[in-house]
Protein backbone atom coordinates (compact mmCIF):
# COMPACT_ATOMS: atom_id res chain seq x y z
CA UNK A 1 0.00 0.00 0.00
CA UNK A 2 2.87 2.34 0.88
CA UNK A 3 4.54 1.77 -2.47
CA UNK A 4 1.31 2.42 -4.36
CA UNK A 5 0.82 5.73 -2.56
CA UNK A 6 4.37 6.79 -3.52
CA UNK A 7 3.78 5.86 -7.18
CA UNK A 8 0.47 7.73 -7.13
CA UNK A 9 2.09 10.77 -5.46
CA UNK A 10 4.66 11.04 -8.27
CA UNK A 11 2.06 10.46 -11.01
CA UNK A 12 -0.35 12.96 -9.41
CA UNK A 13 2.43 15.55 -9.12
CA UNK A 14 3.19 15.16 -12.85
CA UNK A 15 -0.50 15.54 -13.63
CA UNK A 16 -0.75 18.71 -11.51
CA UNK A 17 2.26 20.22 -13.31
CA UNK A 18 0.75 19.23 -16.67
CA UNK A 19 -2.58 20.86 -15.81
CA UNK A 20 -0.66 24.06 -15.08
CA UNK A 21 1.74 23.95 -18.04
CA UNK A 22 -0.13 21.92 -20.67
CA UNK A 23 3.26 21.11 -22.19
CA UNK A 24 2.92 17.43 -22.89
CA UNK A 25 -0.74 16.70 -23.68
CA UNK A 26 -1.02 19.62 -26.09
CA UNK A 27 2.15 18.51 -27.90
CA UNK A 28 1.10 14.86 -28.14
CA UNK A 29 -2.52 15.52 -29.13
CA UNK A 30 -1.56 18.33 -31.52
CA UNK A 31 1.06 16.24 -33.30
CA UNK A 32 -1.22 13.18 -33.57
CA UNK A 33 -4.13 15.26 -34.88
CA UNK A 34 -1.85 16.79 -37.47
CA UNK A 35 -0.83 13.34 -38.69
CA UNK A 36 -4.49 12.28 -38.97
CA UNK A 37 -5.49 15.41 -40.87
CA UNK A 38 -2.56 15.10 -43.30
CA UNK A 39 -3.51 11.49 -44.07
CA UNK A 40 -7.15 12.38 -44.68
CA UNK A 41 -5.93 14.71 -47.44
CA UNK A 42 -3.34 12.23 -48.75
CA UNK A 43 -5.62 9.19 -49.02
CA UNK A 44 -8.93 8.70 -50.81
CA UNK A 45 -10.91 7.85 -47.69
CA UNK A 46 -13.74 5.67 -48.93
CA UNK A 47 -15.04 3.07 -46.46
CA UNK A 48 -12.66 0.33 -47.66
CA UNK A 49 -9.55 2.50 -47.55
CA UNK A 50 -10.47 3.91 -44.15
CA UNK A 51 -10.70 0.42 -42.66
CA UNK A 52 -7.52 -0.66 -44.40
CA UNK A 53 -5.19 2.21 -43.48
CA UNK A 54 -7.02 3.89 -40.57
CA UNK A 55 -5.62 1.72 -37.75
CA UNK A 56 -2.05 2.12 -39.05
CA UNK A 57 -2.39 5.88 -39.38
CA UNK A 58 -3.89 6.19 -35.89
CA UNK A 59 -1.19 4.20 -34.10
CA UNK A 60 1.72 5.60 -36.11
CA UNK A 61 0.45 9.08 -35.29
CA UNK A 62 0.14 8.29 -31.58
CA UNK A 63 3.57 6.62 -31.47
CA UNK A 64 5.39 9.52 -33.13
CA UNK A 65 3.46 12.09 -31.11
CA UNK A 66 4.12 10.11 -27.94
CA UNK A 67 7.87 10.49 -28.46
CA UNK A 68 7.50 14.27 -28.36
CA UNK A 69 5.62 14.11 -25.09
CA UNK A 70 7.92 11.60 -23.44
CA UNK A 71 10.91 13.76 -24.23
CA UNK A 72 9.30 16.81 -22.67
CA UNK A 73 8.01 15.03 -19.58
CA UNK A 74 11.48 13.92 -18.50
CA UNK A 75 13.29 17.04 -19.63
CA UNK A 76 11.22 19.12 -17.16
CA UNK A 77 12.41 16.89 -14.33
CA UNK A 78 16.06 17.33 -15.30
CA UNK A 79 15.94 21.08 -16.06
CA UNK A 80 14.93 21.87 -12.48
CA UNK A 81 17.20 19.17 -11.01
CA UNK A 82 14.08 17.75 -9.42
CA UNK A 83 14.94 14.23 -10.53
CA UNK A 84 17.74 14.45 -7.96
CA UNK A 85 15.25 15.55 -5.33
CA UNK A 86 13.28 12.37 -6.05
CA UNK A 87 16.51 10.39 -5.78
CA UNK A 88 17.18 11.85 -2.31
CA UNK A 89 13.93 10.39 -0.97
CA UNK A 90 14.13 7.12 0.98
CA UNK A 91 12.29 5.14 -1.67
CA UNK A 92 13.59 2.54 -4.08
CA UNK A 93 14.38 3.79 -7.56
CA UNK A 94 11.85 1.50 -9.21
CA UNK A 95 9.07 3.42 -7.46
CA UNK A 96 10.37 6.60 -9.10
CA UNK A 97 10.27 4.79 -12.44
CA UNK A 98 6.73 3.52 -11.89
CA UNK A 99 5.56 6.97 -10.77
CA UNK A 100 7.06 8.63 -13.84
CA UNK A 101 5.60 5.89 -16.07
CA UNK A 102 2.19 6.48 -14.49
CA UNK A 103 2.48 10.18 -15.28
CA UNK A 104 3.38 9.41 -18.89
CA UNK A 105 0.53 6.90 -19.11
CA UNK A 106 -1.91 9.60 -17.98
CA UNK A 107 -0.55 12.16 -20.49
CA UNK A 108 -0.77 9.78 -23.45
CA UNK A 109 -4.18 8.51 -22.33
CA UNK A 110 -5.55 12.06 -22.08
CA UNK A 111 -4.14 12.88 -25.51
CA UNK A 112 -5.87 9.78 -26.90
CA UNK A 113 -9.19 10.87 -25.41
CA UNK A 114 -8.85 13.91 -27.70
CA UNK A 115 -7.35 12.13 -30.73
CA UNK A 116 -9.48 8.97 -31.04
CA UNK A 117 -12.90 10.72 -31.40
CA UNK A 118 -11.38 12.97 -34.10
CA UNK A 119 -10.00 9.85 -35.80
CA UNK A 120 -13.47 8.25 -35.67
CA UNK A 121 -15.01 11.29 -37.36
CA UNK A 122 -12.28 11.80 -40.01
CA UNK A 123 -12.12 8.13 -40.98
CA UNK A 124 -15.84 7.49 -40.39
CA UNK A 125 -15.13 4.37 -38.31
CA UNK A 126 -16.91 3.03 -35.23
CA UNK A 127 -14.28 2.87 -32.49
CA UNK A 128 -16.23 3.39 -29.27
CA UNK A 129 -16.21 -0.24 -28.27
CA UNK A 130 -14.82 -2.22 -25.33
CA UNK A 131 -12.26 -3.79 -27.67
CA UNK A 132 -10.86 -0.36 -28.42
CA UNK A 133 -10.63 0.45 -24.71
CA UNK A 134 -8.58 -2.73 -24.15
CA UNK A 135 -6.27 -1.97 -27.10
CA UNK A 136 -5.74 1.62 -25.97
CA UNK A 137 -4.98 0.60 -22.37
CA UNK A 138 -2.52 -2.14 -23.31
CA UNK A 139 -0.74 -0.02 -25.91
CA UNK A 140 -0.50 3.01 -23.65
CA UNK A 141 0.95 0.94 -20.80
CA UNK A 142 3.63 -0.40 -23.14
CA UNK A 143 4.42 3.02 -24.63
CA UNK A 144 4.76 4.52 -21.14
CA UNK A 145 6.88 1.65 -19.82
CA UNK A 146 9.41 1.75 -22.65
CA UNK A 147 9.20 5.50 -23.21
CA UNK A 148 9.89 6.39 -19.58
CA UNK A 149 13.01 4.24 -19.53
CA UNK A 150 14.40 5.57 -22.81
CA UNK A 151 13.46 9.16 -21.94
CA UNK A 152 15.50 8.78 -18.73
CA UNK A 153 18.41 7.29 -20.68
CA UNK A 154 18.45 9.97 -23.35
CA UNK A 155 17.57 13.03 -21.29
CA UNK A 156 21.18 13.94 -20.50
CA UNK A 157 22.32 13.35 -24.08
CA UNK A 158 22.80 16.50 -26.16
CA UNK A 159 20.80 15.15 -29.14
CA UNK A 160 17.99 13.73 -27.01
CA UNK A 161 15.26 14.72 -29.52
CA UNK A 162 16.91 12.37 -32.02
CA UNK A 163 18.05 9.74 -29.55
CA UNK A 164 14.66 8.97 -28.00
CA UNK A 165 12.82 8.02 -31.24
CA UNK A 166 15.85 5.99 -32.37
CA UNK A 167 15.69 3.96 -29.17
CA UNK A 168 11.93 3.95 -28.63
CA UNK A 169 10.37 3.20 -32.03
CA UNK A 170 12.26 -0.02 -32.88
CA UNK A 171 11.53 -1.48 -29.44
CA UNK A 172 7.80 -0.69 -29.51
CA UNK A 173 7.34 -2.12 -33.01
CA UNK A 174 5.84 -5.43 -31.77
CA UNK A 175 3.40 -3.46 -29.60
CA UNK A 176 2.57 -1.16 -32.50
CA UNK A 177 1.88 -4.21 -34.69
CA UNK A 178 -0.38 -5.67 -32.01
CA UNK A 179 -2.27 -2.37 -31.71
CA UNK A 180 -2.70 -1.96 -35.47
CA UNK A 181 -3.74 -5.57 -36.06
CA UNK A 182 -6.24 -5.70 -33.23
CA UNK A 183 -7.71 -2.31 -34.21
CA UNK A 184 -8.05 -3.66 -37.77
CA UNK A 185 -9.94 -6.71 -36.52
CA UNK A 186 -12.18 -4.42 -34.54
CA UNK A 187 -13.04 -2.03 -37.39
CA UNK A 188 -13.87 -5.03 -39.59
CA UNK A 189 -16.30 -6.12 -36.87
CA UNK A 190 -14.49 -9.34 -35.94
CA UNK A 191 -14.77 -10.97 -32.52
CA UNK A 192 -12.49 -10.89 -29.46
CA UNK A 193 -11.15 -14.33 -30.32
CA UNK A 194 -9.85 -13.04 -33.68
CA UNK A 195 -7.77 -10.42 -31.99
CA UNK A 196 -6.84 -12.53 -28.97
CA UNK A 197 -3.32 -13.40 -30.15
CA UNK A 198 -2.51 -9.71 -30.71
CA UNK A 199 -3.88 -8.71 -27.34
CA UNK A 200 -1.87 -11.50 -25.72
CA UNK A 201 1.24 -10.18 -27.45
CA UNK A 202 0.48 -6.71 -26.05
CA UNK A 203 -0.02 -8.11 -22.53
CA UNK A 204 3.26 -10.06 -22.71
CA UNK A 205 5.08 -6.98 -24.00
CA UNK A 206 3.69 -4.82 -21.19
CA UNK A 207 4.56 -7.27 -18.41
CA UNK A 208 8.06 -7.87 -19.77
CA UNK A 209 8.91 -4.21 -20.29
CA UNK A 210 7.47 -2.91 -17.02
CA UNK A 211 9.61 -5.41 -15.11
CA UNK A 212 12.77 -5.01 -17.23
CA UNK A 213 12.52 -1.21 -17.38
CA UNK A 214 11.99 -0.87 -13.62
CA UNK A 215 15.12 -2.94 -13.07
CA UNK A 216 17.29 -1.06 -15.59
CA UNK A 217 16.04 2.36 -14.47
CA UNK A 218 17.76 2.04 -11.07
CA UNK A 219 21.13 1.72 -12.77
CA UNK A 220 20.86 4.65 -15.15
CA UNK A 221 19.97 7.31 -12.59
CA UNK A 222 23.32 7.66 -10.85
CA UNK A 223 26.48 9.25 -12.31
Amino acid at each position, binding site marked *: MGSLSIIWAIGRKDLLLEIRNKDVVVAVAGFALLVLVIFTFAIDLNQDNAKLVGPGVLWAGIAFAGVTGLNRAFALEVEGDTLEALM*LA*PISRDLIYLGKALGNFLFIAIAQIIVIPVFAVLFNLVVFRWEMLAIVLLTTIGFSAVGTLFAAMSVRVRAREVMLPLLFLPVVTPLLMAAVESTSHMVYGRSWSDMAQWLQLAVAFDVAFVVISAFIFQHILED
Partner: protein
Amino acid sequence: MVSQATQLAVKAEAVVKNFGETAVLRGLNLELPTGEVTVLLGTNGAGKSTLLRILAMLTQVDSGSISMRGADIAQHGPTVRSFTGSVLHSPMLYGDMSVRENLMFFAELYRLENVDYLIATITAKVGIEPRLDHRIRTLSHGFQKRVALARALMHAPQLLLLDEPESGLDSRSVARLDQIIDEYRSQGRTVIMTTHIVEHALEIADRAVVLNNGTVGLTSTNPSQDKAEIIAAYTSRDESEEGSY
Protein backbone atom coordinates in the same frame (compact mmCIF):
# COMPACT_ATOMS: atom_id res chain seq x y z
CA MET B 1 23.29 -3.94 8.99
CA VAL B 2 24.43 -1.71 11.86
CA SER B 3 27.98 -2.56 12.83
CA GLN B 4 30.37 -1.47 15.51
CA ALA B 5 30.92 1.65 13.43
CA THR B 6 27.56 3.04 14.59
CA GLN B 7 29.38 5.80 16.46
CA LEU B 8 30.68 7.09 13.16
CA ALA B 9 28.36 9.24 11.12
CA VAL B 10 30.52 8.64 8.06
CA LYS B 11 33.27 6.18 7.34
CA ALA B 12 34.85 6.39 3.89
CA GLU B 13 37.58 3.97 2.88
CA ALA B 14 39.77 4.33 -0.20
CA VAL B 15 37.08 6.18 -2.14
CA VAL B 16 37.93 6.84 -5.77
CA LYS B 17 35.80 8.87 -8.15
CA ASN B 18 36.76 9.88 -11.66
CA PHE B 19 34.81 11.87 -14.20
CA GLY B 20 36.20 10.66 -17.48
CA GLU B 21 39.95 11.14 -17.25
CA THR B 22 39.69 13.62 -14.40
CA ALA B 23 40.39 12.10 -11.00
CA VAL B 24 38.28 13.89 -8.38
CA LEU B 25 38.60 11.68 -5.31
CA ARG B 26 41.84 9.70 -5.12
CA GLY B 27 41.58 7.05 -2.44
CA LEU B 28 39.93 9.29 0.14
CA ASN B 29 39.74 8.00 3.73
CA LEU B 30 37.55 9.82 6.20
CA GLU B 31 35.96 9.15 9.57
CA LEU B 32 33.45 11.59 11.03
CA PRO B 33 31.87 10.96 14.44
CA THR B 34 28.18 11.51 15.10
CA GLY B 35 26.94 14.63 16.85
CA GLU B 36 29.52 16.97 15.35
CA VAL B 37 29.42 19.81 12.87
CA THR B 38 32.07 19.15 10.24
CA VAL B 39 33.07 21.68 7.65
CA LEU B 40 34.68 20.44 4.44
CA LEU B 41 37.07 22.99 3.01
CA GLY B 42 39.05 23.10 -0.17
CA THR B 43 39.49 25.15 -3.29
CA ASN B 44 37.26 24.63 -6.31
CA GLY B 45 37.89 21.16 -7.69
CA ALA B 46 39.12 19.73 -4.39
CA GLY B 47 36.24 17.22 -4.39
CA LYS B 48 33.97 18.69 -1.67
CA SER B 49 30.77 18.76 -3.70
CA THR B 50 31.48 15.35 -5.23
CA LEU B 51 31.96 13.91 -1.76
CA LEU B 52 28.67 15.44 -0.58
CA ARG B 53 26.88 14.11 -3.68
CA ILE B 54 28.28 10.65 -2.95
CA LEU B 55 27.09 10.88 0.66
CA ALA B 56 23.69 12.04 -0.63
CA MET B 57 23.73 8.96 -2.90
CA LEU B 58 23.38 10.95 -6.10
CA THR B 59 26.79 9.87 -7.40
CA GLN B 60 28.31 6.41 -7.23
CA VAL B 61 31.91 5.79 -6.29
CA ASP B 62 34.21 4.03 -8.77
CA SER B 63 35.84 2.05 -5.96
CA GLY B 64 36.08 2.08 -2.19
CA SER B 65 33.32 1.88 0.38
CA ILE B 66 31.26 4.28 2.44
CA SER B 67 29.11 3.57 5.45
CA MET B 68 26.91 6.08 7.20
CA ARG B 69 25.85 5.38 10.79
CA GLY B 70 27.05 1.83 10.24
CA ALA B 71 25.04 1.16 7.08
CA ASP B 72 26.85 0.54 3.81
CA ILE B 73 25.36 3.03 1.36
CA ALA B 74 25.72 0.65 -1.58
CA GLN B 75 23.49 -1.90 0.12
CA HIS B 76 21.13 0.12 2.29
CA GLY B 77 20.21 3.05 0.05
CA PRO B 78 16.66 3.77 1.25
CA THR B 79 17.68 3.32 4.92
CA VAL B 80 20.58 5.73 4.59
CA ARG B 81 18.46 8.26 2.72
CA SER B 82 15.80 8.05 5.44
CA PHE B 83 18.21 9.50 8.04
CA THR B 84 19.92 11.94 5.69
CA GLY B 85 18.78 15.42 4.67
CA SER B 86 20.53 17.29 1.88
CA VAL B 87 20.71 20.85 0.60
CA LEU B 88 22.90 20.87 -2.47
CA HIS B 89 23.78 23.59 -5.00
CA SER B 90 20.41 23.64 -6.77
CA PRO B 91 17.22 24.02 -4.70
CA MET B 92 15.71 21.06 -6.65
CA LEU B 93 12.10 22.26 -6.38
CA TYR B 94 9.13 22.25 -8.75
CA GLY B 95 8.84 25.81 -10.05
CA ASP B 96 5.17 25.58 -10.96
CA MET B 97 4.11 24.26 -7.58
CA SER B 98 3.74 26.37 -4.45
CA VAL B 99 6.00 26.05 -1.42
CA ARG B 100 3.25 24.13 0.39
CA GLU B 101 2.64 21.79 -2.57
CA ASN B 102 6.36 21.06 -2.86
CA LEU B 103 6.69 20.29 0.84
CA MET B 104 3.52 18.17 0.87
CA PHE B 105 4.76 16.18 -2.10
CA PHE B 106 8.13 15.45 -0.50
CA ALA B 107 6.43 14.66 2.82
CA GLU B 108 4.53 11.93 0.97
CA LEU B 109 7.75 10.53 -0.49
CA TYR B 110 9.26 10.49 3.02
CA ARG B 111 6.04 8.87 4.37
CA LEU B 112 5.64 11.58 7.02
CA GLU B 113 2.56 12.05 9.20
CA ASN B 114 0.91 15.20 10.62
CA VAL B 115 2.09 16.96 7.49
CA ASP B 116 0.17 20.23 8.01
CA TYR B 117 1.63 20.69 11.49
CA LEU B 118 5.07 19.68 10.26
CA ILE B 119 5.00 22.18 7.40
CA ALA B 120 3.79 24.97 9.71
CA THR B 121 6.62 24.26 12.17
CA ILE B 122 9.41 23.84 9.68
CA THR B 123 8.48 26.84 7.52
CA ALA B 124 8.37 29.02 10.64
CA LYS B 125 11.83 27.76 11.56
CA VAL B 126 13.36 28.73 8.21
CA GLY B 127 11.24 31.87 7.85
CA ILE B 128 9.16 31.13 4.77
CA GLU B 129 5.67 30.83 6.24
CA PRO B 130 4.37 34.06 4.59
CA ARG B 131 5.28 32.57 1.20
CA LEU B 132 3.67 29.16 1.69
CA ASP B 133 1.22 29.57 -1.16
CA HIS B 134 3.59 31.30 -3.55
CA ARG B 135 4.86 29.33 -6.51
CA ILE B 136 8.55 28.51 -6.32
CA ARG B 137 9.16 30.19 -9.68
CA THR B 138 8.13 33.55 -8.19
CA LEU B 139 10.55 33.35 -5.23
CA SER B 140 14.08 34.71 -5.08
CA HIS B 141 17.02 32.30 -5.00
CA GLY B 142 17.45 32.93 -1.29
CA PHE B 143 13.84 31.96 -0.54
CA GLN B 144 14.16 28.89 -2.76
CA LYS B 145 17.22 27.87 -0.80
CA ARG B 146 15.24 28.22 2.43
CA VAL B 147 12.49 26.00 1.01
CA ALA B 148 15.16 23.45 0.10
CA LEU B 149 16.39 23.64 3.68
CA ALA B 150 12.84 23.13 4.96
CA ARG B 151 12.52 20.04 2.78
CA ALA B 152 15.82 18.68 4.09
CA LEU B 153 14.77 19.22 7.73
CA MET B 154 11.20 17.97 7.42
CA HIS B 155 11.96 14.34 8.33
CA ALA B 156 14.30 15.38 11.18
CA PRO B 157 17.34 13.67 9.66
CA GLN B 158 20.16 12.40 11.88
CA LEU B 159 22.67 13.58 9.28
CA LEU B 160 22.41 16.89 7.46
CA LEU B 161 24.47 17.54 4.31
CA LEU B 162 24.79 21.19 3.31
CA ASP B 163 26.65 22.25 0.18
CA GLU B 164 27.46 25.96 0.47
CA PRO B 165 24.15 26.55 2.27
CA GLU B 166 24.77 30.24 2.84
CA SER B 167 25.01 31.11 -0.86
CA GLY B 168 22.13 33.37 -1.80
CA LEU B 169 21.08 33.90 1.82
CA ASP B 170 20.98 37.32 3.48
CA SER B 171 22.73 37.84 6.83
CA ARG B 172 19.52 37.26 8.79
CA SER B 173 18.96 33.95 7.03
CA VAL B 174 22.58 32.93 7.65
CA ALA B 175 22.04 33.64 11.36
CA ARG B 176 18.90 31.49 11.26
CA LEU B 177 20.89 28.72 9.57
CA ASP B 178 23.56 28.92 12.28
CA GLN B 179 20.82 28.54 14.86
CA ILE B 180 19.50 25.42 13.12
CA ILE B 181 23.01 23.95 12.95
CA ASP B 182 23.51 24.66 16.68
CA GLU B 183 20.18 23.04 17.47
CA TYR B 184 21.17 19.96 15.48
CA ARG B 185 24.47 19.69 17.31
CA SER B 186 22.80 20.00 20.70
CA GLN B 187 20.40 17.18 19.73
CA GLY B 188 23.35 14.89 18.95
CA ARG B 189 22.77 15.02 15.20
CA THR B 190 25.51 15.38 12.62
CA VAL B 191 26.02 18.21 10.13
CA ILE B 192 28.49 18.04 7.25
CA MET B 193 28.82 21.22 5.24
CA THR B 194 30.98 22.81 2.61
CA THR B 195 31.55 26.51 2.38
CA HIS B 196 33.86 29.14 0.99
CA ILE B 197 33.18 31.49 3.91
CA VAL B 198 36.02 29.90 5.83
CA GLU B 199 36.34 32.20 8.84
CA HIS B 200 32.67 31.93 9.70
CA ALA B 201 32.64 28.15 9.17
CA LEU B 202 35.59 27.65 11.50
CA GLU B 203 33.71 29.51 14.24
CA ILE B 204 30.69 27.23 14.12
CA ALA B 205 32.34 23.88 13.30
CA ASP B 206 33.58 21.18 15.70
CA ARG B 207 35.82 19.71 13.04
CA ALA B 208 37.38 20.98 9.84
CA VAL B 209 38.54 18.74 7.03
CA VAL B 210 40.60 20.29 4.26
CA LEU B 211 40.41 18.37 0.99
CA ASN B 212 43.36 18.66 -1.31
CA ASN B 213 43.57 16.95 -4.68
CA GLY B 214 40.85 14.47 -3.81
CA THR B 215 42.29 13.34 -0.48
CA VAL B 216 42.16 14.62 3.08
CA GLY B 217 44.92 17.20 3.41
CA LEU B 218 44.31 18.19 7.00
CA THR B 219 41.86 17.46 9.81
CA SER B 220 41.38 19.68 12.82
CA THR B 221 39.19 18.91 15.83
CA ASN B 222 39.62 22.42 17.13
CA PRO B 223 39.08 24.60 14.08
CA SER B 224 38.65 27.93 15.85
CA GLN B 225 42.08 27.43 17.45
CA ASP B 226 43.78 26.02 14.35
CA LYS B 227 42.48 28.74 12.08
CA ALA B 228 45.86 29.85 10.71
CA GLU B 229 46.99 26.31 9.91
CA ILE B 230 43.65 25.43 8.26
CA ILE B 231 43.62 28.56 6.13
CA ALA B 232 47.21 27.86 5.07
CA ALA B 233 46.27 24.31 4.03
CA TYR B 234 43.11 25.59 2.34
CA THR B 235 44.96 28.10 0.22
CA SER B 236 48.03 25.95 -0.50
CA ARG B 237 46.61 24.39 -3.65
CA ASP B 238 47.75 25.81 -6.96
CA GLU B 239 44.92 27.98 -8.27
CA SER B 240 45.74 26.94 -11.80
CA GLU B 241 44.45 23.42 -11.04
CA GLU B 242 40.96 24.66 -10.25
CA GLY B 243 38.01 22.82 -11.67
CA SER B 244 34.40 22.54 -10.64
CA TYR B 245 34.00 19.42 -8.63
